[in-house]
C-alpha cells in the first residue's frame, strides 16, 4: 500500500488496450463515481499476463495487493461493488496476490501468492521490475521506486568506474547477438573524439517480439536512465531513441517521460549540477525491418535509405555521422539502473557461467499463457514454456519453439531441456535473439513457417548485396513449390546449398542469419518436408494447395469432411451419405466410435467449439441403415480370387473396394460374426450390434462372401487357401491379445482377466457378473469401456487405477465423464505393484502412489512412484487394460513371415506387402492397436496394392492431394443466426437408467440440430 488511499490500477499497455482496457477503465470510473467510494483509479503498463487481459490490480487499505484478470466492462461493476466495497473475492478473476507488507494487511483466502502462482513464481524481474507496477506517465512514481538514484550515484563516480561496474555484472547485449556491453562501451570510450552518441535501438522488427514495446510503454524512465548512464560512461552528449512507428503508445509514453526528465534536470545541460550534459531525442522508424541492424539504423537517422554498410569499422569506432557511437538495445539499457544500484555481483550471481542475469521473452503462439516473462538465464527452455507459460493449449501438444524471429530457428520439443543461455541455444542452430518466443503445436506446419520467414526476409531485404536479395528469393521459390506439393527431394539439398552460400556471402547480420529458419526446420522437421514432397500431404493441414481443409487432411482416410458437412447444411442428406461412402464403408460406426481427429483440427474450435463432425456423420449415416436390401451385387469380372483373413474394419474395407473392382473376395472370420474389434472391443451401449451388422450387410450385399467361425491355422491354412484358388491373401487379424501387467501374482489367482478377453466375452453375449469389486488398470478408452461394462453387469464397486492425472488421460473426456456419472471411481496417480490372493482367488491389488515428474518426450509428465506410499485396493477382479498385440504366434510358427519385435507383421509401409510376395497385411496386425479410421485407411491402401499386384503394375502407393471432391456453395447465415448457433449437446439417456442395461447411451442429433451445427462450419475449403 502506497500512502493511505486505496487504489485501483488498470494495465493499459497495448495488449491491455487491444483487449479493451480503455473501456474497462471508463466503466470502473463510472462505477466508482456512482458508488461514491474514495479510491484512486490509475493506469500502469504491462504486467506480463497478456493472455488474461484486461488486468486490474486492487490495492486496498488493509489488504494485500491482488491482481485480477479477464476483467470486462460487465465485471467492472462486481469489482467495485463486491471486492472494493465488501472485500469479497471474485474467484473467476483472481490471479494472484502479493505477500502482505506488514501485519496490518490481511490476505485474501484461496488466492495464490505471487511466489506460489505457477506463472510468476519462477520469474525474476530486473528489467521488468517496474512494468505493471508504476504509472509510466508519472516520473514521481518512478522516482519513488529508487528512480534516477542510479544516475545520482554514477555522477559521483568517474566513467571508468561505471564501465567497471557494468563489466562485473557480466551483462551482454540483449538485442540478440550477445556482445558484452562493457566491452562495447570501452571501445567507444577509448576513441579520442569530442562528439559521441548513444543510440537506443527500439526498432523491434522481429515478428513475434514485443519486449521492447512493453518496456517502453511500462517503464520508459528506466530506459532513459540507462541511456544517460551509457552516455556518461562513454562520454557522449547526445542520445537517440530509434523507435518503430508501429508503436504509437510507446512513442507517446517516451515523449512525456523525456519532457518530465528534462524538467527535473535528469536530462539536459549540466545534469544535477554535475557538469555533465546529455540530451535525448526520439526518431521514429519508418517501417523497414533492416533498420534493426545497427549500421542501417544509423543510416536511417542520417536521413539515408536504411542500408547496412560493411563492418569494420564498427559503430563504437565510427558510427553516426562518422562519430563513435554505442548502439544498445532497450532491454540492456533497462537493466542498467538496477545493476548500478545493487552490487553488480548480485546481477552476476543470477544465470549461468557464461550468460549472466535474466532474459525477457515475449511468449506467444500456441501456448496457454502468452505474455511477457523474465526468467533467469539457465532455466530450461522446457520449464519456461511448460511451467511459466503453462504448456500447450488444451488438447494439443507442443512441437517446437521459434526463437530469434527471422534470424533464429525452431527448437524441437525433444530438445527443450537445454538451458536458456547464449551458447546452448546457438548449438541448436537457433539464436537467443531479442526475446521473441513463438510456440508451435501440431497445427503449425514447419515448412510453412520456414516459407513465412524467408518471405519476410525477401520483403525486408534492403537489396544492397546480391546473396541476400537474390538468394532469399530463390529459396522462397523452392519453398513455395514444396508448400504447393510440387517439390522434389533434390530441392532440400538445393535449399541447404543456397543457405550456406547466403550465410557465407551476405553483407550484414540480417542476410547472414536469414537462412536459419530453413536450416533448423530442415534439420529437425525433415519428415514434414518429405511429407509435402513425397506424400503430397501437409501433416498440420496448413498448406492450402495440399489441404483444402484441416479436417479432411487430419482424417487418416481422407474423408471429404468439408463437402459432406456443407451438404448437410443444405439439407442434401443423401448426397452427403453417398459422398462419405466413397471413402468409408462404415459411416454409422464411425459416427459413433471414431477418434475424430478432424474435430481437433477444426478451425471453428479456435472460435468456440469445433463442428461436431462425428455426430453429423452419424446423423446422415443412420438414414442409410438397412440399405443392404437396395444394393445389388457387383458382377465378378476378374478371374483372381482373394482371401481376407479377419473380418474387422481393415479387412472388410479392402473387401469393399476389391469387390467393386470385380474381384471375388472371401472374408474368413474366427469369431461368430464379422466386425472384429468393432464388435468384440466396443460395448453395445456405445455401438449397437444392429448398426454394425447393417454396415456389414451392405458390404456383403455387394458380393463379398463372409465365412465366420473359421480360424486360420485350424480350419484353413495358407496352403489350403492357395489350393482352393485364392491367389492372394490379406491378413487383417487385428490385435486381440492383451498385454500383461508384469507384476507378481498375475498368473497365480483367478479373477485377473485382460480387458479385451473380458469385453469379447461380454460382447458375444455372456452377461455374468464378473465380481463385486472390480479394478480396471489403464487410462485409455478400453479401460473406460471395461469399467462401464462391469457396472452394467452389476459389479457393486468399480475402480479405475491410472498412473498419471486426469489431464494426461488418453480416453475421451465425454467417456470419462459418463463413467463417473455411472459411479465409476477413478484413482489417479496410482500404479499396481502386486496381486494378493487367498486359496487361489484374488483378494486385492497392492498399489503405489505416483507424483508427476518432468515432462517426457511426448510432452506428458512422467509419473514417478512415491516411496512408502503403498496401499491395498480390495477386489475380486482385476482387468488390465494397458495394451494389446496381434495373436500371431501360430501363424508365425508355421510360415516364414518376418515379425517385428512388437509381434506385428513386417510390411512395406507403402504397399503393405509382407516379405512373402503376394501376401499382404493391414490394420492392427501391422500397427498394433490403433483406431477404426486408421484401419479403414489401411484397408483402402491394401485394396489398391492388391489390385496393382494382379494387374502386374509396380506396387507403389499413389499419393494425392487431399482436396474436396464436390463444389458445394457456401450457405448464407444471417448475422442474427450466427449468434444463436452453438454446438448442440448430444442428447443422452439418463445415467440412472443406462447403467442398468446395454442400450445405446447417445440418442443422436435431430435434423435441425444437425443442420444448425453444419452451418457453423467456416468452410476452410473455399
Amino acid at each position, binding site marked *: 500500500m502506497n500512502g493511505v488511499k486505496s487504489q485501483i490500477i488498470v494495465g493499459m499497455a497495448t495488449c491491455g488496450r487491444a483487449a479493451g482496457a480503455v473501456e474497462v477503465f471508463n466503466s470502473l470510473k463510472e462505477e466508482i463515481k456512482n458508488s461514491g467510494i474514495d479510491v484512486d483509479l490509475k493506469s500502469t503498463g504491462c504486467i506480463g499476463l497478456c493472455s488474461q487481459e484486461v488486468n486490474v490490480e486492487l490495492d486496498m487499505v488493509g489488504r494485500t495487493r491482488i491482481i485480477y484478470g479477464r476483467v470486462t466492462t460487465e465485471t467492472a461493476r462486481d469489482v467495485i461493488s463486491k471486492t472494493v466495497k465488501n472485500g469479497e473475492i471474485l474467484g473467476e478473476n483472481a490471479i494472484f496476490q502479493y505477500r502482505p507488507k506488514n501485519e496490518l494487511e490481511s490476505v485474501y483466502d484461496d488466492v495464490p501468492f505471487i511466489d506460489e502462482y505457477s506463472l510468476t513464481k519462477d520469474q525474476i524481474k530486473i528489467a521488468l521490475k517496474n512494468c505493471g507496477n508504476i504509472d509510466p506517465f508519472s516520473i514521481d512514481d518512478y522516482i519513488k521506486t529508487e528512480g534516477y538514484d542510479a544516475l545520482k550515484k554514477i555522477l559521483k563516480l568517474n566513467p571508468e568506474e561505471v564501465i567497471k561496474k557494468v563489466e562485473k555484472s557480466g551483462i551482454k547485449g540483449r538485442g540478440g547477438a550477445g556482445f558484452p556491453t562493457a566491452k562495447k562501451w570501452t571501445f567507444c570510450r577509448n576513441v579520442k573524439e569530442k562528439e559521441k552518441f548513444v543510440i537506443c535501438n527500439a526498432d523491434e522488427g522481429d515478428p513475434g517480439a514485443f519486449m521492447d514495446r512493453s518496456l517502453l510503454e511500462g517503464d520508459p524512465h528506466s530506459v532513459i536512465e540507462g541511456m544517460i548512464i551509457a552516455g556518461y560512461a562513454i562520454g557522449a552528449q547526445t542520445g537517440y531513441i530509434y523507435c518503430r512507428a508501429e508503436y504509437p*503508445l510507446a512513442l507517446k509514453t517516451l515523449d512525456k517521460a523525456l519532457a518530465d526528465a528534462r524538467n527535473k534536470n535528469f536530462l539536459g545541460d549540466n545534469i544535477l549540477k554535475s557538469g555533465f550534459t546529455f540530451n535525448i531525442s526520439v526518431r521514429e522508424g519508418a517501417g523497414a525491418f533492416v533498420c534493426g541492424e545497427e549500421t542501417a539504423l544509423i543510416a536511417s537517422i542520417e536521413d539515408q535509405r536504411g542500408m547496412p554498410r560493411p563492418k569494420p569499422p564498427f559503430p563504437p569506432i565510427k558510427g553516426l555521422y562518422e562519430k563513435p557511437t554505442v548502439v544498445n538495445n532497450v532491454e540492456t539499457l533497462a537493466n542498467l539502473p538496477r545493476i548500478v544500484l545493487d552490487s553488480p555481483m548480485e546481477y552476476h550471481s543470477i544465470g549461468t557461467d557464461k550468460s549472466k542475469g535474466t532474459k525477457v521473452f515475449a511468449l506467444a503462439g500456441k501456448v496457454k499463457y502468452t505474455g511477457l516473462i523474465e526468467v533467469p538465464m539457465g532455466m530450461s527452455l522446457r520449464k519456461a514454456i511448460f511451467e511459466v507459460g503453462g504448456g500447450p493449449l488444451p488438447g494439443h501438444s507442443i512441437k517446437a519453439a521459434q526463437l530469434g524471429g527471422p534470424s533464429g530457428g525452431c527448437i524441437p520439443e525433444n530438445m527443450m531441456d537445454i538451458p536458456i543461455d547464449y551458447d546452448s541455444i546457438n548449438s541448436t542452430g537457433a539464436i537467443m535473439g531479442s526475446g521473441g518466443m513463438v510456440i508451435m503445436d501440431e497445427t503449425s506446419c514447419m515448412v510453412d513457417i520456414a516459407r513465412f*520467414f524467408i518471405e*519476410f526476409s525477401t520483403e525486408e531485404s534492403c537489396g544492397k548485396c546480391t546473396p541476400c536479395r537474390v538468394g532469399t528469393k530463390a529459396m522462397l521459390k523452392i519453398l513455395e513449390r514444396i508448400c504447393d506439393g510440387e517439390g522434389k527431394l533434390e530441392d532440400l539439398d538445393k535449399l541447404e546449398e543456397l543457405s550456406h552460400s547466403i550465410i557465407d556471402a551476405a553483407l550484414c547480420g540480417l542476410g547472414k542469419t536469414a537462412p536459419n529458419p530453413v536450416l533448423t526446420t530442415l534439420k529437425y522437421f525433415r519428415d514434414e518436408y518429405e511429407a509435402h514432397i513425397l506424400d503430397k500431404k501437409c501433416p498440420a493441414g496448413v498448406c492450402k494447395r495440399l489441404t483444402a481443409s484441416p479436417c479432411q487432411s487430419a482424417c487418416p482416410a481422407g474423408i471429404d469432411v468439408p463437402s459432406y458437412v456443407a451438404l448437410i447444411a443444405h439439407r442434401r442428406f443423401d448426397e452427403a451419405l453417398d459422398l462419405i461412402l466413397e471413402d468409408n464403408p462404415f459411416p454409422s460406426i464411425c459416427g459413433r466410435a471414431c477418434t475424430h481427429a478432424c474435430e481437433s483440427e477444426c478451425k471453428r474450435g479456435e472460435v468456440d467449439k469445433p463442428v461436431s463432425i462425428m455426430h453429423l456423420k452419424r446423423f446422415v449415416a443412420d438414414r442409410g441403415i438397412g440399405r443392404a436390401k437396395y444394393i445389388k451385387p457387383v458382377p465378378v469380372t476378374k478371374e483372381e480370387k482373394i482371401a481376407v483373413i479377419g473380418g474387422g474394419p481393415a479387412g472388410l474395407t479392402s473387401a469393399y473396394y476389391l469387390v467393386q473392382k470385380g474381384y471375388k473376395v472371401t472374408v474368413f472370420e474366427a469369431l461368430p460374426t464379422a466386425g472384429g474389434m468393432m464388435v468384440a472391443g466396443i460395448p453395445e451401449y456405445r455401438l449397437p450390434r444392429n448398426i454394425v451388422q447393417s454396415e456389414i450387410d451392405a458390404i456383403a450385399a455387394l458380393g463379398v462372401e463372409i465365412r465366420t467361425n473359421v480360424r486360420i491355422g485350424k480350419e484353413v491354412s495358407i496352403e489350403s487357401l492357395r489350393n482352393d484358388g485364392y491367389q492372394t491373401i490379406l491378413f487383417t487379424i487385428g490385435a486381440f491379445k492383451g498385454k500383461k501387467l508384469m507384476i507378481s501374482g498375475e498368473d497365480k489367482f483367478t479373477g485377473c482377466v485382460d480387458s479385451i478377453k473380458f469385453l469379447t466375452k461380454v460382447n458375444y453375449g455372456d452377461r455374468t457378473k464378473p465380481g463385486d469389486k472390480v479394478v480396471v488398470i489403464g487410462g485409455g478408452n478400453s479401460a473406460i469401456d471395461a469399467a462401464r461394462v462391469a457396472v452394467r453387469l452389476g459389479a457393486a464397486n468399480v475402480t479405475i487405477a491410472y498412473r498419471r492425472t486426469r489431464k494426461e488421460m488418453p480416453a475421451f473426456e465425454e467417456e470419462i465423464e459418463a463413467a463417473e456419472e455411472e459411479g465409476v471411481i477413478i484413482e489417479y496417480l496410482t500404479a499396481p505393484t502386486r496381486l494378493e490372493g487367498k486359496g487361489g482367488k484374488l483378494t486385492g491389488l497392492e498399489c503405489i502412489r505416483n507424483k508427476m515428474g518432468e515432462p517426457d518426450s511426448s510432452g506428458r509428465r512422467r509419473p514417478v512412484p512415491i516411496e512408502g506410499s503403498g496401499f491395498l485396493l480390495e477386489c475380486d477382479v482385476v482387468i488390465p487394460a494397458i495394451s494389446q498385440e496381434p495373436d500371431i504366434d501360430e501363424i508365425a510358427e508355421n510360415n516364414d513371415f518376418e515379425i517385428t519385435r512388437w509381434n506385428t507383421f513386417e510390411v512395406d509401409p507403402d504397399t503393405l506387402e509382407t516379405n512373402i510376395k503376394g501376401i499382404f497385411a493391414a490394420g492392427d496386425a501391422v500397427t498394433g492397436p490403433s483406431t477404426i479410421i486408421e484401419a479403414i485407411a489401411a484397408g483402402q491402401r491394401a485394396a489398391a496394392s492388391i489390385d496393382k499386384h494382379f494387374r502386374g503394375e509396380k506396387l507403389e502407393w499413389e499419393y494425392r492431394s487431399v482436396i474436396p471432391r464436390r463444389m458445394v456453395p457456401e450457405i448464407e447465415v444471417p448475422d442474427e443466426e450466427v449468434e444463436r448457433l452453438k454446438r448442440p449437446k448430444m442428447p443422452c439417456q439418463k445415467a440412472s437408467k443406462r447403467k442398468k442395461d446395454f442400450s445405446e447411451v447417445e440418442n443422436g442429433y435431430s435434423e435441425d440440430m444437425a443442420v444448425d451445427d453444419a452451418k457453423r462450419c467456416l468452410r476452410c475449403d473455399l
Partner: protein
Amino acid sequence: MEQKENEVISAEDIQVLDSIYNENREYDSIMIYLQKIQSALGYVPEYAIKYLASKTKASESHMFGVITFYSQFSTKPVGKNIIKICNGTACHVGGSKVLGKKLKAMLNVDDENPTTEDRLFTVQPVACLGCCALAPAMMVNDKVYGTLTVEKMKDIIETYKKGSENGDF
C-alpha cells in the same frame, strides 16, 4: 507518382507544409519532415517533395529514394482510416492470412488497390504489431485490436463506418 501535370497547389496546401517545416526545423531531418507530411496528408505528394527540395539541402531524387525505401511512406493518397493487419509470426500461426483475405473481401479491396472507393479505409500489411500475445491482431490508425475473429473484425469495421470510433488509443 500519381499526380496531374499541372496540378494547382492551393494556398492552404502551402500553409500546411509551411507549418510542418517551421515546427520541425530544430531537428533538421528530412525523415522527420517526410513523416510529418505523411501523417498530416496520409501520403507524400510530389509537390511536398518539391517544396522540401526548395527549403532544404536535400535533392528531390534523394527524397524519392528515401520514400520508396521505407514502407511507412505512400505516394498515393490513402483512406481516412488505415487498417494494418498484422503478419507477424504469432498472428501467422494464429491464422492471420485467412483474416486478411476476409477483410479485403469485406471492404472490396486488394493489394493493387488497397483503398476503398469511398476513401474510408486503406488496408496495409504490417510485419508485426508486437501484440503477439493477443494474436491475431490488427491496428486501425493508432488503436490495436487483439484476438480477432471474422465476426469481431466485422463489428470493428462497423464502428468506423458509423464514425463512433476514430482509432485514437
